[in-house]
């Protein structure tokens, strides 16, 4: 199964306000140059692309989660969906 990492990294780095440079999986979501509504829009784009529902609360997760956390969650949810389908 394809890993979601490449797609997600592309979705982040193509955002207008992305602060540039090489994206590290350990980067926290609040250090990407995106404001909170852009991160929320990103989660919407990911849900639409992968046909999943991300349990994401902007009050908690933008500060505490990294890009790697996001990718891991998406991979798990895609795997769970594929299995149940």
């Amino acid at each position, binding site marked *: 199964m394809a890993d979601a990492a490449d797609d997600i990294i592309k979705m982040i780095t193509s955002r207008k306000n992305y602060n540039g440079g090489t994206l590290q999986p350990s980067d926290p979501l609040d250090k990407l140059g995106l*404001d*909170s*509504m852009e991160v*929320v829009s990103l*989660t*919407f784009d990911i849900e639409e692309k992968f046909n999943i529902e991300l349990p*994401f*609360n*902007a*009050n*908690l997760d933008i*500060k505490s989660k990294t890009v790697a956390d996001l990718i891991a969650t998406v991979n798990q949810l895609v795997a769970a969906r594929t299995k149940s389908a």
Partner: protein
Amino acid sequence: MNRVVITGLGVVSSVGQSTKDYWDALIAGRTGFAPATLGTAAQATSKLVGEVKNFDPAAHFESSQLLLLDRVSQFAVVAARQAVAQSGLELHDELAERTAAIVGTGSGGHTTVDEGFHRLYAEGAARLHPLTIPKAMISAAAGQVSLYCGTKGPAFAVSSACASATHAIGLAFHMVRSGSVTCAVSGGTEASITFGGMKGWEAMRIMSSDTCRPFSKDRKGMVIAEGAAMVVLESLEHARARGADILAEIVGFGMSADAKDLTSPDPNGMARAITATLNDAGLAGEQIDYVNAHGTGTVANDTAETAALHKSFGAHARQLAVSSTKSVVGHALGAAGALEFVATVMAIRDGVVPPTMNYLGADADCDLDYVPNEARRMPVRTALSNSFAFGGLNAVLAARAFAG
């Protein structure tokens, strides 16, 4: 310029359908949050909401009247009738023409829109009910309040999302103060806990999964609510002449726009609205005892609002009692400012500050006295009520104890 006093209050809320029941719940910190039970919203979300439970439209209206009343207008009229009844105003012809009805709402007849469009899009219905537009229009509640209370002066809706009711009451205050009207029935109403409304809020990912804990560490966001609150404002001269019971005096109203971001609040914009209110009232910051905060329970609002209070009040910020009654009643959006202004007036009257409930401890960015978890008996001579809306639209009211 007229001095302007408050002579009537009315409330329909998630924790009580009268001013007394609402105020008792705020003081006791009895929250009313639960999963949605009504209409399409019940299938839409597992999120907690502050629904107006056991609201019986038939107890307030004839069935022929209900055909014309979306839930948002029902709430508005019930609250307005309470406020007018308490004021003792009799809106005869001449006074009726000098009385305004100004009603704030964020989204108007949301239930009518949601159910009507569901019929069209999902069920393939061929037509909508003929009263869809007059029930759904954002000014419907203002029209219905004027109709049921018999006000014949200026009447219109004010919409600025979560600041709608505060803008409405502020405009009404300025109209009475200037003498363009003698009395006003004003406030806000909201009833948008529908499938479409809740999905929209969920998509913003700022709704709490447990409860609303404004300014607290580990806060998870807001809890959407519904309801209405209305006040009767009148010139002091008029209230005195008829021997009315004066509840408090409304003394200031200030507005500002952030002009910065559609959703992220700006402490500078908030602070400008607070300062504008103090200036409008001719008050020094040191005269304020209590601030009923916007306090939504989101990380962004509560941090920005705390910074704005520091900015506007300087050292006095630490002397203020600041509380968010949204911790009990939820965020009733376009009605919130009116519900909170009623709480502010009651705090002045009773000398009790309602608590910020569900508070777990200090957050690094929120370092004021939030009156955590327990009501506080203290003299409240002068107080502010803050409302800060999406769009960066800010509005603040000031009221003080009536001292003759």
